[in-house]
């Protein structure tokens, strides 16, 4: 019921107002009362008191269902978005979201609190790689301060973490994502709140598909060469 009401509020004028003004959507993310750990059960690194220098956390989405396809980061290491995160000290770009952010909002070792991640359609700093309406958003966190320097990760989503159609204020949607929510679904469900999945050793399903396609292509090429002979 409340979801319907909220949609009525923020999407009510979608058709009439989207023609003019800044079309946007805000996502608030937090670890709630939980702490995130690495595979050795040590709380993830928060860096210094400065924001943006802890272990990587990405807000993003999968191009396929159920943790399949490519994970596209909207924030965090690897993201194309570099707008400044409100309240961050020192000013932190979207592509540096990390464990311990934001210190001013209570972020510390193994936790994160990042309000006000606003994505503006068409904006070069915050409008890159935006998902289509209805896409499930997810949070992925690593055990290193860069993706390349990490050994393990895990990803979590929730049926309520749905990207809505961006809109002009006051109809701009707000998506709230907290690890306190009841419906969390983990990529590695056996190890929730832990970076348990090897970064390189276990390719994602999409990588399997790519690899299979590549092998198939190789096989076809080999057959073609044999046929020519």
């Amino acid at each position, binding site marked *: *019921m409340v979801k319907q009401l909220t949609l009525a509020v923020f999407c009510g004028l979608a058709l009439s107002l989207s023609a003019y003004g800044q079309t*946007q959507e805000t996502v608030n993310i*937090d670890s709630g009362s939980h702490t995130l750990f690495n595979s050795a059960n040590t709380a993830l690194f928060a860096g210094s008191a400065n924001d943006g220098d802890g272990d990587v956390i990405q807000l993003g989405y999968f191009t396929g269902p159920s943790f399949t396809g490519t994970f596209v980061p909207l924030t965090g290491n690897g993201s194309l978005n570099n707008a400044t995160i409100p309240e961050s000290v020192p000013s932190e770009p979207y592509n540096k979201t990390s464990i311990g952010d934001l210190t001013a*909002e209570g972020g510390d070792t193994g936790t994160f609190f990042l309000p006000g991640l606003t994505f503006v359609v068409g904006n070069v700093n915050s409008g890159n790689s935006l998902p289509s309406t209805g896409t499930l958003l997810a949070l992925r966190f690593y055990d290193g301060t860069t993706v390349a320097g990490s050994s393990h990760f895990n990803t979590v989503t929730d049926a309520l973490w749905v990207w809505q159609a961006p809109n002009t*204020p006051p109809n701009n949607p707000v998506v*709230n994502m907290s690890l306190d*929510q009841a419906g969390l679904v983990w990529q590695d469900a056996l190890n929730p709140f832990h970076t348990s999945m090897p970064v390189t050793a276990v390719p994602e399903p999409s990588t399997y598909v790519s690899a299979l396609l590549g092998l198939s292509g190789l096989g076809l090429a080999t057959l073609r060469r044999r046929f020519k002979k």
Partner: protein
Amino acid sequence: MRRIVPIICTVALFAFASLGLAQTVATTPVGFTTATIPAAPSGTTPANTTICSAFYAPAEFTGAVSSVDSSNQISLSGAAFGNLTTVAHLARFKSGGSVGRFFVVTANSATQVTLNTAATGGSGYTLTTGSPGAGQTQVVAGDSVEILPANTFGSLFGTVPVANSGTMPFLTGATFDVADNIQLFNGATWDVYFHNGTNWRKTGSGLNQNNTVVLPDRGMFVIRRATSALSLNFLGTVPSTTEKTDFPGPGNTFKANRFPLDTNLLTLGLQTLPNWQSGATFDVADNVYLWNGTTWVVYFWNGTNWKKTGSGLNQNTTAVPTGTPFFVVRQSSASGATSTLTQTLPYTLN
């Protein structure tokens, strides 16, 4: 960002002309606030802000209820009313069980007023029955009532643009998308108002909206397309009694901070409403949305403290400054008296 300069609550005392209507003319404390509407960053990127006014127009009549005539009609001792509907008027209860409530006058005789008690566009409270809830406040003979002009787009902002030597300061335009907008939430969606250079208009309507009522508890969402900032002065009589504001649920409301005084989430007291739903996370709780100049910030009561999505901090002292409305999303059930927030006067009037 909007800056509010609240001031003068009990300083000046004015006696207003009564237009020949009033038996009693009271001297009432008046005050003003100034709201700054920020400039649009560019011609294609508007600035957005929220505003509200806590002030009433001066009373034209103050008297007592002589009889309650029906569920939506009262007679007033000593009244000699002219027309109270061509220019919209409010009846504002200043004592008794309905103190702090206001009703739009929909018809009147010399001594009797008919009040809008409909849930849509009115208070949703009748005067004599238990509808919509058995515990509702009611009205009895002897209750004190003020009759006063309602705030309208014309009275709050003017009707003739500054460019034409008037006082209406907003950017005008033939259509809403090239003019400044003022949006009012109607319970389901936003009604969009703009000035077309001649009159206030509403999208989807061909009618003049100069006299459209902006109820005392309404918040306004302003979209500024001009690239210059704007200062708006709200002037009027200061709230002098308890104020009542309804937050029915399940449902959404965009309500004003009723007093010209800074407050905070805890003091505002929404968490004390009957049935107000608390929860460990926003999605199982009733929510309060505050506009921060860029987007909505979402708050919820976790049973002990106010919390903000995306923050681990206690938000009890989060400011709700003078002139700041707030959007309430209730998933809990509340109607009638169970939806009413009663705020006592936070200052003393001499």
